[in-house]
């Protein structure tokens, strides 16, 4: 597994986002789960709620600490990863695939372009982690 997959965008607060047409999938990075250690609870947003970019949207509790998760983009919550309720540890083992957090609908293409500009590509994010 790559620690910094090329097809994702990353927030400075260590969330990742994958865009497929008008749907964005959000999770936390390898670096984030490694820093948190064993994850034991993930509190996800309600379906149908609208969230703004950089707003608190979820909470991760590991054995070590609690950490707020910020939405990298604005949009409406379409789907949450139900598997995290019983097997939160998949965030540790598969942060970029089975360990995703939620999917959101993007309806404003102009806003999306501006918000994506605020995010980093894999190379920039790897540098960001090296200096974290």
């Amino acid at each position, binding site marked *: 597994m790559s620690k910094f997959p090329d097809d994702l965008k990353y927030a400075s607060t260590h969330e990742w986002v994958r865009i497929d047409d008008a749907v964005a999938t959000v999770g936390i990075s390898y670096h984030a789960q490694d820093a948190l*250690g*064993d994850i*034991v*609870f993930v*509190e996800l947003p309600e379906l149908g709620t609208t969230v703004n970019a950089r707003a608190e949207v979820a*909470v991760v*509790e*590991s*054995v*070590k*600490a*609690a950490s707020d998760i910020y939405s990298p983009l604005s949009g409406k919550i379409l789907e949450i990863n139900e598997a995290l309720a019983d097997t939160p*540890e998949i965030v*540790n083992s598969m942060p970029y695939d089975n360990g995703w957090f939620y999917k959101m609908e993007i309806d404003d293409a102009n806003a999306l372009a501006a918000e994506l500009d605020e995010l980093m590509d894999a190379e920039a994010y790897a540098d960001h982690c090296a200096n974290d």
Partner: protein
Amino acid sequence: MAQHTPLFQKHLDAGAKMVDFAGWDMPINYGSQSEAHNRVRSGAGVSYVSHMTVVDISGIDASAYLQYLLANDVAKLDDQGRALYSAMLNEKGGVVDDLIVYRMSFGYRLVVNCATRLKDLAWMAQHSPGFKISIEEQPKLAILAVHGPDAIDKVCEILPADQADAVRSLGNFRGVELDSWFVARTGYTGEKGVELIFPADAAAALWDKILAAGVSPVGLAARDTLRLEAGMNLYGHDMDESVSPLAANMEQTIAWQPQEREFIGRAAISRHKQDQASGGLPHLVGLALEQRGVLREGQKVQSDRGEGVITSGSFSPTLKHSIALARIPVDSQSCQVEIRGTLTPVRIVKPNFVRFGKKVFD
């Protein structure tokens, strides 16, 4: 920069993430904390804990000195190798440190905490005049703690046959001197096992043998969740110099008898006992949160009798929910904890959660 222990490279080889712990480079985790924790509950794990301070006391007044210095009574140690857990109190009845004292062929061996090393040594020296004793720190000794249901078998596989026999026949809280080695059935996990105290130049070879025997390395983080599940205090968190042992679930470690034994802090904690009986001094309890959420040190507790605070809290890998130690008013019947801005009801239980791999509270 933190000091490297003799096992620094061995920890890195085992995949450790290192942290500075009171001036020592110590392993916090070797991969997953929960996996290491579970290995101790179900198999065997080894922790390198040589950052702890070993102090040997000898001389004709060694017993009298320790009977004055410690809240527990070394007169209970009626046989060589026997171990006793005790608080060392100040005159105000606060806890200077908690420690294990062993009776040895030469006198007594104390194992005290790491972060408290300098103040402990100063405290011991300050109270030694008038006693014919020698106080000797042993910085060249290493300590390995091997615990879990398979731990004693694994250690005995490695030791020479006659030493293995001696270790196998040890009862709980008993130890045996084997030349320059000392092996004792003591620990900080709530599982069976031994602590090995031996010359540090043998540490790397022994570490390799123990890992080769199938024992998993256990970092400081898993050690903390293990001791919390076992309801054992951590100095500087569950108690310190401002906290009475009676407010830290240490009443059982105070030897009130014989009444004529004068020990440092006795007068103060006698008053604390009266305060507690009238509700003026809080006590340390266990808390269980059997739903989502994690109790953390420092969170406020609101009980039907007043306010309190969590002194240690974590997710329990064995119980799969959160547990905590909390100092709250005596006679509290119900309480809530403020978790991230929300008051959440929790259950008050005995401060002892897991022993020998099993849940022990109702």
